């Protein structure tokens, strides 16, 4: 077996996946590069948040809150760094740290291998992620941002859908 099992209260046989060496780093960097360059050529691609999907995926797969939040922080800070001077370091970092923690925590309790679960979780995390960014902008940066609109819902559905396929690709990076 290339994966380990962990027993939790009331839960049984929840897998903690391991990945190939450098898989997380390469996937993260690739997601950031694509996220930074893809919308230049395809404006509609701006609704996608590939770094968030990577955070969610590895959080759900590794199922370790500490590593999940640290990975989320790292990806978020890198995204902040690539987002230009208008985005302060920590904006995405805070949001993705929390998402990484939540994904890891949920992944440790639920079976998240099913595509429907992945779709729903990604959509929900996307909305939560946007909510955290708006919260940070409003409270910490005093920047007025709308809490909710239909575009957000549509973007969440699109990200959920894309995540289903992306996660299948990322599954291939698991150590079999």
């Amino acid at each position, binding site marked *: 077996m290339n994966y*380990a099992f*962990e027993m939790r209260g009331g839960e049984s046989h929840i897998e*903690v996946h*391991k990945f190939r060496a450098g898989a997380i780093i390469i996937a993260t960097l690739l997601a950031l590069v694509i996220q930074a360059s893809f919308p230049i050529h395809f404006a509609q691609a701006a609704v996608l948040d590939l770094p968030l999907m990577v955070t969610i995926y590895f959080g759900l797969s590794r*199922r*370790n*809150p*500490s590593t999940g*939040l*640290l990975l989320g*922080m790292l990806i978020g*800070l890198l995204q902040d760094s690539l987002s230009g001077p208008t985005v*302060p*370091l*920590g*904006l995405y*970092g*805070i949001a993705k*740290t*929390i998402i990484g*923690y939540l994904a*890891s*925590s949920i992944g*440790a309790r639920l079976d998240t291998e099913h595509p429907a679960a992945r779709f729903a979780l990604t959509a929900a995390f996307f909305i939560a992620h946007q909510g955290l960014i708006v919260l*940070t902008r409003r409270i*910490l*940066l*005093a920047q007025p941002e709308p809490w909710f609109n239909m575009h957000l819902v549509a973007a969440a559905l699109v990200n959920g859908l894309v995540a289903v396929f992306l996660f299948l690709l990322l599954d291939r990076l698991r150590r079999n």
Partner: protein
Amino acid sequence: MIAIPSRHKSLVLLAGVIVLQVLMLAVQIKRDSEGRLIRVWTVGAVSPFERAGSYGFGSIRNAWRHYLALRNTAKENEQIRHENDALKLQISQLQGKAAEADRLAVLLNFRRAHTEVPMIAARVIGAGAGTASLTIELDRGERDGIRKNMGVITPDGVVGKVVEAYPHAAQVLLLTDKDSGVGAMLADSRIQSPVGGQGEPLLAMKYVPNDDTVSVGEHVYTSGMDRIFPRDLPVGTVAEIKPGNPFKQIRIKPAAHLERLEEVLVLLSLRPLEMKNEENPGAAQPSAPGAASPPQAVRR
């Protein structure tokens, strides 16, 4: 098997990481008017304690001032009350002195304007003890050159004459006394007639025939015929005229404020004097009977 940290440990790590990033945000963000966010937060976090401290110290200070320090307040109040009374008395005295200075200045000016007439200023130190006579007492007497029958005036008009002179005091019979009198004349008609007291505030002008024209408000001056007062000193103003038999009954309101005399001038001469009358130069015209002499002081 992968060792997974405890839930508590990961929560602490989460909190630490979030706080770290929030601080990082705060260091970077610079608000337009308030400076860097970290500074805003620091001030915002510290100022409530500063405010509380200030309020606390202020309360303690106020408590000390308003309650504990009240022990001395009653004593201070008493002291301040005494000082206030003393100051009120002092103000009253100063006001009196100022008024006195004003009156003395008037007297001095009057003396300077009539240097031809020897006179001395005296302070009224008392009034007659009985109601039978209207007299006042002066603080100057024989040693100051005051003699019996000398005239007493103020810049406003005739007051009376000295009836008794003592070494250091003198008694003056006021013009309103029923035994008092002064040679007078009406300013417009130049009719001469003695004016005497009646024991009441108004004087009486006697011996003016019913045929003569006298009007209310007409001024009355000394005629100099009594050989006590120089000519043309104000005596009073005609206040009331009634026909009589055979003479008019004319009441004169005294020119001098006889009811509130404080300083007077005593004419230091028993000889008839002549005064310049600046206020009523027409009264000194030679056409008036008994006014033929020039307006200089005349010694006979």
